[in-house]
């Protein structure tokens, strides 16, 4: 059988004879302690739970956001691709037709009059984000807040749609 060394860090154990300094025992102990003490002066990699806030990965899949375009119009056209891609069937959409005079509210002639995500069903897989042809829905680094009532976990458009004063940055998300 061939030798596989995939990690490139494999060390073969040999049964060689120890040298005189190794047999003295104390120099090797000091060398080992040196490695340990070195780590005292290196930057810490642990986060203290409760004290520090651990940064999220840029592709973290948290609470959804429905994006608006630069002119503040809703991007979602209620095509239903997210709802059909959703493996948990958490998304419900009802579409409506844009009336004359509403061009500043909705980007295209069709929009979602109801857009609901049941956060108890959602498994945060991100397939809705991947399926969206209009770059309207994204998952963000925000966490879904704790509620005391199960009904409150059904997020409606008021909860999901971003406001123009407080826009949510999704420029770090690499999807395609």
């Amino acid at each position, binding site marked *: 059988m061939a030798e596989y060394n995939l990690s490139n860090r494999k060390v073969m154990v040999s049964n060689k004879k120890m040298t005189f300094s190794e047999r003295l025992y104390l120099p090797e102990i000091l060398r080992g302690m040196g490695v340990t003490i070195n780590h005292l002066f290196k930057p810490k990699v642990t986060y203290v739970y409760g004290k520090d806030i651990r940064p999220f990965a840029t592709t973290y899949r948290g609470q959804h956001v429905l994006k608006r375009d630069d002119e503040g119009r809703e991007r979602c056209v209620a*095509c*239903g*691709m997210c*709802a*059909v891609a959703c493996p948990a069937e958490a998304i419900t959409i009802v*579409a409506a*037709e844009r009336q004359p005079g509403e061009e500043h509210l909705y980007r295209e002639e069709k929009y979602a009059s109801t857009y609901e995500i049941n956060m108890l069903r959602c498994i945060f897989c991100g397939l809705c984000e991947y399926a969206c042809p209009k770059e309207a829905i994204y998952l963000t680094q925000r966490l879904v807040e704790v509620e005391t009532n199960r009904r409150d976990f059904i997020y409606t458009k008021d909860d999901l749609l971003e406001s123009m004063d407080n826009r949510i940055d999704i420029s770090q998300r690499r999807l395609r």
Partner: protein
Amino acid sequence: MKVTIDGHTIDVEPGTTILQAARKIGGDIVPPAMCYHSLIENTGGNCRVCMVKVAQGSERDPRPMPKLVPSCKTEVQDGMVVENISNPNVLEARKNVVELLLINHPLDCPVCDQAGECELQNLSFKHGVEMTFFEEDKRVFEMTSLGDKIKLHMNRCIVCFRCVKLVDQISPERQHGLLYRGDRAEISSYIQKAVDSEWSGNIIDVCPVGALTDKTFRFKSRVWFLKPMEAHRDCDTCSGNALVWMFGNEIYRVTMRNAPYGEHEELICNTCRFEKKNVSDWEIIGPREYPKFSVINQNNYVTPPKKVVINADKRLL
């Protein structure tokens, strides 16, 4: 008459077209067709996606035809040899035709009601290329209506003439047609005159793209969320055999029953199509089967799931 299509030989009646002979054989060798529809007289020859190579004209005159021919309009001759998918030139030509059909198509599938049952969508998935050489602006028309029940999106039209020929067939006089020529060609009724016939709703179904849509179903739902159910109703005008698209216990829309290759079984009247949307109006027979990988089967379970038996005793022990 013997005709050979991609190596499959079949005996057909005189007067059969190559497309009909290929459909009798079935399988991968059937050329796609956007404008030919068997319910409508004199359709075909407009879209050019069904072009095939005739490698041998007939038994008596075995010369090949010099150019690709539209298979929906070319009648077979005895001993004809046709190449469809076995000829790379045909496939290359079909790719280019799809690209040309798409140059003025707005590709607004997320908004379009036809998405999911659109023949142009299926065609471009199967035969199209992902890129286009077309950089110019697409033609833009205002949305109009043909009557109070039918919406016309001229942007999406691929000028297949199915609707014009169907209206010619069902009404005594001409009611709508094509204005202008070439790039500016536009389907229109005479000065916004309504297309009023008891059968006019069928032009919605025969439209291969989303240019003609049902105003009573406009933006109500997407087709893959609905369940197509065969239904029957005692109607004086038509046969009453239709397909109702249900969500739960509600009927969202009524269409003609589908047939293979994007065609339909028989026409239904406007009363059945637009006005009978209560479950009590219909006698619902059962779910309609669609091809296995059709998007309409998404999340629908037409066939009962098979019981899986694992013979663990035999294999493992």
